């Protein structure tokens, strides 16, 4: 079990008013996630997995309760501070990849560095390195629509890691991929978690993948945490199938 705490939620609630009905998307969830953990959020559709992930990502604000990441309560941060938090602390991977279609892969991966005001030359070099690590060095000038789903998700992963986040949030990263490609992406996530000690919080429907790669599985139903399982077997899993992926070097260092 990791020593320091990466994420803590305290009686976290996110309720929506939809007409007459009150939707309790997240309803009093309190969890602690240690630094370096690989946590899978499991549950049926509408169980509140993505809502919880959005709250931890700082994309949404809780109705009540607290989300504490690296000692800061996100509920108390201003919009500007939340933007900085998303830029420097969090990396996000989405089910639908969310690459900007009008930009090449290199430009897509460079985009967070533009917001971080990194010099043009440096960010180009960093983006190239990042794409190289996910095996896309030959696709720098391609637009997302010219790539397969797996390649797009790898590019998305390269973009999520470009600012060296402490927390990697993945919202059903394999949801739009076939099982073989999905496994490749999971191997990448696992590799970054292991080599960098990066905390990973992943929403998934696929119990098998979660069991194989996540060290902990949180089961949600109707916005509540119904089960918290530590997967001791994950360390003993047969990792021979996981290809070795080089972790990204901190900015300024050569790989």
């Amino acid at each position, binding site marked *: 079990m990791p020593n320091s705490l990466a994420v803590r939620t305290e009686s976290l609630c996110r309720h929506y008013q939809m007409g007459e009905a009150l939707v309790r998307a997240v309803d009093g969830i309190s969890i602690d996630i240690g630094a370096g953990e690989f946590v899978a959020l499991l549950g049926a559709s509408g169980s509140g997995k993505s809502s919880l992930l*959005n709250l931890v*990502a700082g*994309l*949404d604000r809780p109705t009540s309760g607290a989300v504490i990441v690296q000692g800061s309560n996100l509920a108390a941060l201003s*919009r*500007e501070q939340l*933007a*900085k938090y*998303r*830029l*420097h602390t969090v990396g*996000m991977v*989405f089910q639908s990849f*969310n*690459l*900007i279609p*009008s*930009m090449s892969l290199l430009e897509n991966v460079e*985009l*967070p560095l*533009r*917001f*971080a*005001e990194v010099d*043009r030359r440096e960010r180009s070099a960093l983006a190239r390195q990042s794409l190289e690590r996910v095996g896309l060095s030959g696709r720098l000038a391609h637009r997302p629509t010219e790539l397969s789903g797996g390649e797009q998700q790898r590019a998305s992963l390269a*973009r999520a890691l470009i*600012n060296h986040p402490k927390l990697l949030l993945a919202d059903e990263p394999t949801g739009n991929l076939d099982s073989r490609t999905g496994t490749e992406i999971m191997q990448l996530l696992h590799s970054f978690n292991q080599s960098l000690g990066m905390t990973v919080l992943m929403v998934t429907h696929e119990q098998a993948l979660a069991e194989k790669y996540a060290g902990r599985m949180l089961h949600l139903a109707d916005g509540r945490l119904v089960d918290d399982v530590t997967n001791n077997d994950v360390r003993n899993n047969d990792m021979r199938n996981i290809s070795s992926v080089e972790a990204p070097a901190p900015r300024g260092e050569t790989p």
Partner: protein
Amino acid sequence: MKFYDVTDLAVRNLRESVFRNSLTTIGISVGVASLVAMLSLGIGVQQLASRRLQRSGLFDTVVATSRRDLRNFREQREDGPPPAESPALDEPARQKIEQLPGVVEAYPDIRFVTEVRFDDKPHLTMVAGVPFSAKNNNDAFDGMQGSFFSSEAAPEVILQKSFAEELLGIKPKPGADDTNIAELAKPLLGKEVTMRYAERTASPSASPTKTGLGERGPSDAAAYSVVSRQQVLKIVGVTDLDPDSMRGTARARVFLPLKLAQDLHLMQSNLRDTSASDSPSYTSLSVRVGNPNQVPAVEDAIKKMGFSAFSIVDATRSMRQFFAVLDGFLAIFGSLALAVASIGIVNTLVMAILERRREIGIMKALGASDAEVRGLFFAEAGAMGLVGGAVGVTLGWALGRLINFGMNIYLQRQHFPPAEIWSVPLWLVLSAIAFSVAVSLLSGLYPATRAARLDPVQALRYE
């Protein structure tokens, strides 16, 4: 985000919807062109009128008179030394006035009523001396038929159109079109007229010797004799406009070189030359000032020297007021098209927000702040305004040149001198572009704020 990155992303986004953004930019261009066209017309007409009035001597001339001349009761009201103690308006005084700051030249007014004979027929008219400098600074001579005087003291005359008509026995019909000046000048140019005048010559008693009246100094010498003379003058020009418009009812219709008029030692009522000496005393000097704004200062300086001075510069106030109102109206009408164009910008950017909703969500998820998203949309609006403004100014300028060209063809056919009725000064170019950018940014305010306030979760769900 750095300025370069904002600009880069804005240009990239504009290129993505190049057709729609081009149409919006064309809308801005038309708006700016209309504004530039209207204001250029206003400025051009104002400059034309100002130039014409300034060159007529109405607004850049101070008339200095001696306080010794008691005929002008207007001067009696002014403060200053009593007429008897006031200095003489003589040649040294003229030179002193000419040295005043802002003064271009000071010359005596020589005008007299005399008989001018043409084809042995006498015609009585007012004759005036014209300084040689009027060749370049009185545009009444610009569009005239023939040419200006060949030299400072050439025995030549320029006739005003009405006098030319009189010499040829043409009577303008009421309501009919003006007589063609070119046809009027044709039979007169190169012909000669004979001007009869009275010359003053110093009488022997004017010398500083004892006379029956007692001891008198040269300046007091008053004895002179008048001799009838005549001077043959060649007609070199016929002018349509009135070079002497400032003089009202005392306007001359025949003009001869001032130097020649001075050399003729004419007997005239307002040249208080009491002798035929080299230092004549004048009752009136025309003082031409370089800039109409300096007229009040020159007027005050002349008054301080002990002379009377007046100008009609105040009359320009109403003219300036008129043009300020005209420019205001033209600017309002010109801005209407730009206002319509600004609605186009709002529409384009709101459409862009709808289309790029998901993209905005992605950028926010990746760490873009509200200010950066707002800045991006502002940059797009500003870029459209800048390009639209630059193209609009070029269009407006080209339109102006075209209208100017057409107008000059029309003026030429109507036998008028060419005129520049269109003026696009540098300040107008820069102001129009700045205004275009400002209007575009203002138009981008609502869409940019809306984009910045987008909820990233909602935006990411948008398909």
